[in-house]
Structure formats: structure tokens, C-alpha cells
């Protein structure tokens, strides 16, 4: 019995609607799972799940992570780097770097038993959401970008992101020693545990160099106007200011310091690297030192050179550090599969990755693994953007 006044629609029209809805749902379902690499899984194919962030708040970085991973898969397949004739098939699903959405996608990928490994996660909160799912389903999870401490947890959770902490320590020490700064203040985005952990590494480096700590000014991920934080930092009258934040947060604070006329040494982390960032604030970012593990202009070896060439050819621009991290996640999984021999199952891959202590000739050079965490401290370079073109060059003190 109808209780509203809407006229009843004729049957055929309602049927057409139902068909349209059904077709839409089918189309959405079909597009929800994009296969990178085409062919379906078979005996000669190893399927790797990839939770990408090509939409959402950090899609700019997310796209380069995913593109780096795609280049790695293509190279592994083209050069038979797994040494067993098998091909990697990437099964990409969009997680938008949203914890809830990414956890749901991780659960879907983990439920697909043909998928032997998963790679993902730029943000630590997202990695934290995906981690228990991987552990429960016993599927190796390779984290390519989350930097919070203690996320790596063999035999199922591994991390190939080059950790910013040792790099931050190194940039602090080096800049302090080469510029002779005596005091430092910190601008830290305190509502992100990964950033706080990175800030602690800056502090440690400065302390080791004997620089006086004049205190910290907090910013938040929701901060859009950094003038107040810059005012507080400048008030501390320090020789240097270290800025630790996510990309937009760090750039915003550095720009505010620049506009407020701060003329001391500004130091920051790798978060300000990435295509397009310099263009947004060229005057403020020029000459600010930051550490990188990967520099396309100065490839560490032939592997890095080949990666730069392939990426540039495919995407029309040189790879940045994020692309390198995406590449390295897939490359490490491939090397794990190679070490697993014929046992290209989740268990075989997990065991192989757990036993991995070093990798030769990665795009960072030779790297080691400790507790599932890749270490490449020797690859750290201290660089800065150069005005007006935004090239990245080795940092040198102004005087």
C-alpha cells in the first residue's frame, strides 16, 4: 500500500531503470579492480596486490609511488630478474590513503589467495590499519612509505621505505658542523606520529653536534595559516629553525618564515622533495637543505640509471624519491620471490623476505635489512633546490 502521493511508474520504465542501475553497478565493480599488466593469473604469473593512492589528499605523491612500482614490475618481467621465467602481475586497488578504505582494500586483496604479497602505504596511520590484516591472513606486506617507528614486523610486515630518521640525523649534524650554528628551534607537526618521530631524529642530530635547543613550536595537519607559528619561532631568536611536517605543512611554515623575514638557517626533511613543490614557493624553498636517498640527476649505479631512463621514457619526467620508494618495494618483493625459488606462495615469500639480510645493486646501491627494515644510510645526500629553475643540487653552506 502506498502512503505517498507519487504516481506509480509504468513497468517498462522501471525495468529500464533497473537495467541501467545494474549496468552501472557492473561497470563500477569491473573498474574497482584494475590490473596492471594485463593477463590473468596462471602458473607463469605471480600476483602482487598494490594499494595505491592515486586519488585523495596525497594523490600527487601516490601517483609517483605507483608509477615507480609499475616500472619495477616491467623491468623485473622484461629482464627476468626473478630468474624463474615467471612474470609479476600487479593488482592495483585504490585506497586513497584513507585508513578505513585502505583497510577494506587490504582485506579484499588478502582474501584473494592468488595474491602472494601486498605493497602499500604512504601514511603510518594507513600502514597501521593494513598491518593487522596482513598478519592475520599471513600475506607478506611491503610498506613503501610509512615512516612511524616499529611498523616493520617480520615474518609478514616488511618495509623498504628509506627511513627519514637517519637521514634527518645526518642533515642536522652536517648543517650544524658546516654552518657553525649554536642554537636551534623546531617547528613540528605534532598530530602525526611519523613526523614526530622524524623530528626526534633532527633533535638527536643537533644534540650530537652540540647545538642548543631553544624549544619547539607546534603545528597541526589542519593548519592552513602558518604566520602565527612562524612568529613564535622567530621570537626564539635561534640561529637555525628545523621544520618537520608533511609536504604542504612544511612548505607552508617555511614560506611563512620567509615572508616574516627570518634570515637564519632553515632545515627540513625529505617531505619537501617531489615534483611541483618548488614551483609553489620558489623563493622560500631555494637553498633550504634537506636529505634525499635518491637523486635522479646522480644515480647511484647502473640499476638506478636504468630506472631513471625507463621512468622518464614512460612518464615524461624524471622519478623523484617517492617513485624510487615505489620501485624499490616491488624490486624487493621480486628478489624475495627469486630467493623463494619454486615456492612462490605467501609462505615461501614470507620466509624468503624474513631471511633477507642484504640486497646488492638496488637503486640505492647496496642495502641491508634489519628486522624487516631496509637500511641505506650510506645513500643519503644533502641537497637543496636551486633558484630560479628548481633543480636539485648538492647543498653547500652559504658562506
Amino acid at each position, binding site marked *: 500500500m502506498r502512503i505517498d502521493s507519487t504516481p506509480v511508474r509504468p513497468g517498462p520504465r522501471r525495468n529500464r531503470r533497473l537495467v541501467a542501475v545494474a549496468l552501472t553497478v557492473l561497470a563500477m565493480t569491473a573498474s574497482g579492480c584494475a590490473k596492471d599488466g594485463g593477463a590473468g593469473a596462471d602458473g607463469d604469473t605471480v600476483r602482487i596486490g598494490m594499494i595505491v593512492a592515486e586519488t585523495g*589528499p596525497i594523490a600527487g605523491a601516490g601517483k609517483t609511488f605507483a608509477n615507480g612500482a609499475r616500472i619495477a614490475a616491467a623491468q623485473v618481467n622484461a629482464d627476468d630478474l626473478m630468474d624463474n621465467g615467471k612474470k609479476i602481475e600487479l593488482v592495483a586497488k585504490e585506497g586513497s590513503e584513507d585508513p578505513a578504505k585502505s583497510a577494506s582494500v587490504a582485506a579484499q586483496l588478502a582474501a584473494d589467495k592468488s595474491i602472494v604479497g601486498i605493497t602499500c602505504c604512504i601514511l603510518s596511520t594507513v600502514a597501521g590499519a593494513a598491518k593487522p590484516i596482513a598478519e592475520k591472513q599471513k600475506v607478506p606486506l611491503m610498506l613503501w612509505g610509512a615512516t612511524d617507528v616499529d611498523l616493520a614486523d617480520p615474518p609478514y610486515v616488511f618495509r623498504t621505505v628509506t627511513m627519514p630518521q637517519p637521514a634527518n640525523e645526518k642533515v642536522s649534524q652536517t648543517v650544524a658542523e658546516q654552518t657553525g650554528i649554536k642554537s636551534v628551534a623546531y617547528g613540528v607537526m605534532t598530530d602525526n606520529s611519523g613526523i614526530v618521530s622524524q623530528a626526534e631524529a633532527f633533535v638527536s642530530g643537533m644534540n650530537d653536534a652540540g647545538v642548543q635547543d631553544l624549544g619547539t613550536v*607546534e603545528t597541526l595537519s589542519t593548519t*592552513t595559516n602558518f*604566520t*602565527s607559528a612562524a612568529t613564535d619561532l622567530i621570537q626564539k631568536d635561534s640561529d637555525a629553525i628545523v621544520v618537520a611536517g608533511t609536504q604542504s605543512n612544511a612548505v607552508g611554515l617555511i614560506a611563512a618564515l620567509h*615572508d616574516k623575514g627570518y634570515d637564519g638557517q632553515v632545515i627540513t626533511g625529505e617531505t619537501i622533495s617531489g615534483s*611541483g*613543490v618548488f614551483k609553489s614557493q620558489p623563493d622560500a624553498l631555494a637553498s633550504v637543505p634537506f636529505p634525499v636517498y635518491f637523486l635522479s640527476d646522480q644515480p647511484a649505479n647502473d640499476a638506478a640509471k636504468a630506472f631513471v631512463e625507463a621512468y622518464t621514457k614512460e612518464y615524461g619526467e624524471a622519478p623523484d624519491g617517492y617513485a624510487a620508494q615505489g620501485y624499490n618495494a616491488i624490486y624487493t618483493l621480486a628478489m624475495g620471490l627469486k630467493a623463494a625459488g619454486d615456492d612462490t606462495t605467501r609462505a615461501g615469500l614470507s620466509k624468503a623476505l624474513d631471511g633477507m639480510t642484504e640486497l646488492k645493486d638496488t637503486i640505492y646501491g647496496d642495502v641491508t635489512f634489519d628486522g624487516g627494515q631496509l637500511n641505506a644510510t650510506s645513500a643519503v645526500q644533502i641537497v637543496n633546490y636551486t633558484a630560479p629553475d628548481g633543480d636539485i643540487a648538492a647543498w653547500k653552506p652559504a658562506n
Partner: protein
Amino acid sequence: MLLLEQLINGICTGAIYALFAVGFGIVFSTMQILNLAQGVYATYGAMITYFVLDESGLPFWLAAILGVIGAGLVAVLVDQVAFEPLRRRGVQLLGAVIASIGMWIALREVLSIATEATPVGFPPGTAPRGQISIGPIDVLQTQVLAVVCAVVVISAVYFLLHRTNVGSAIRAVGFDKRSAQITGISPQAMIIGAAMLSGAVTGLAGILMAGGQSFNFNLGDALLLQGFAAVVIGGMGDVRGSAIGGLFIGVVQTLSASYISASYQDAITFGLVLVVLLWRPTGLLGSADFQRA
């Protein structure tokens, strides 16, 4: 001296919140819509200005005018696409809120794709940068611009709404659409005009927020909560109240971040909002209530 500097920072931030809140309040008082897509208008204002500056080399003031007009047109588009069909069906507040969330996400994704989600900034040498000395205090040019724009635009909006026939017609439609129509007013024209005005004012807030810093397709999202709180404090439907509410929030946020902790600034700010609401449920100057919606 630090207190004075931070007070000025707070007033300048509050000026932007005030502009946003006025735009937000116009929509609510005219159409009884709690428009959660309002933040996107601010982002579009800033982004259109950026693209014009980056592509055409026009002077900043002209690019900003185009950004303001563009944001206004986006607001009209949202109103006609999302809200007008609901008005025709007599759908009330909740339906409009849900529709506005849909428009917010869709429009934001368009900008995400257009900018590849990378931060952008007004090209060097286009927007005002640097500082002006006012007595012992150095103030950013962008801050001075924000305060001047807020005073001029909010005064103009108040004058328009309360001292002109068009303003009377807009308010009449907001109060009772059918009665206004009987007196010869075109509700459709007034609603489109109000949407345009709301989007333009909000777009200006976005441009001022973006000046001198990097921003991305999320710019307006952060303004949304502050703008809503400002409207609640000031009182729905009163331009002066929205302006006072925006200034209040800007100052409280800045001082609490500087003297207590940034981690608590939102808790302190919205705690005070709660206190104001308990004291005056209709806001400082408001007489409207949610019953109309």
C-alpha cells in the same frame, strides 16, 4: 610585543574566517541550507586565481576578481544542480546536507585531478608578499589585504542586504518564499543572486587564505569548520554576527596555539563555542533558528 603580534595575527586570520562565515551565513539565511560544499568555493576562488596568474600573466587584482566571479559561478552551479531539484520536491535540511556533501567531494576531486594533487602557489611577483611596518610591528602585506578586504566586503554585503531593495527581496525570500512571490519578487532570481554573492565572498576568503603560501585542493576544507562555528557564534542570518564570530575564532585559535598548545586550540575554540551557545542559543546577534529549515 609577542602578544601584540599574535593578536594581529589572530585578527588577520579572523578576518578571513569572517569573510567565509558571511558567505556561509548568506546561504543558510536565504535558502535554509547547511551547505557543506561551501569550503570548495574558497578553494575554487584560490585555484582559479592561481591558474589565471600562471597561464595569462594578468595582474593579481584582475586574476583575483576572476577567481571571485568563478567561485560565485561554482556556487550557482551547485545550487542549481544539487539544491534546486530538492527545493522543488520540498526536501528539507538533511537532504540538502547530503547533496552538499556529494557536491563537495565531486568538485574537490575535479581540482585534485586538475592539479595532480600537488601543492601550488601564486607565482612569484604576482600576489602581495613581504611585510609592512606599522609602528613597532611588522605585518605581512597579505594580512593587511585580508583585513581591508574583510572590512570593505562585509560592510558592502551588510549594506546590500539591509539598505537596498535587492537585499530586502533576498531576505524576504529567506523568510517566506511564497509571501515574497506574492509581492512580485522572483524567488529563483533572488536565490541565484544569493548563491552568487555567497560563492563570491567565500571565494575571496579562499584567495586571501592562499596568498603567500602553498595550497592544494583541500584549502577550503579547513575553513569550513571555522566558518560554521563563526556563524553559530555570531547568529544565523546576521552578517555582523558572522563577522564577529569569525574574528573571535581567529583570535582565540591564534592565542591558544601560541600560549597554550596548538594541540588544544580546536578544543579550546569549540569549547568556547559551546559556552556561547549555552549562554545565547541563537548566537550573539542571531534571531534565526533551525525551526525554519
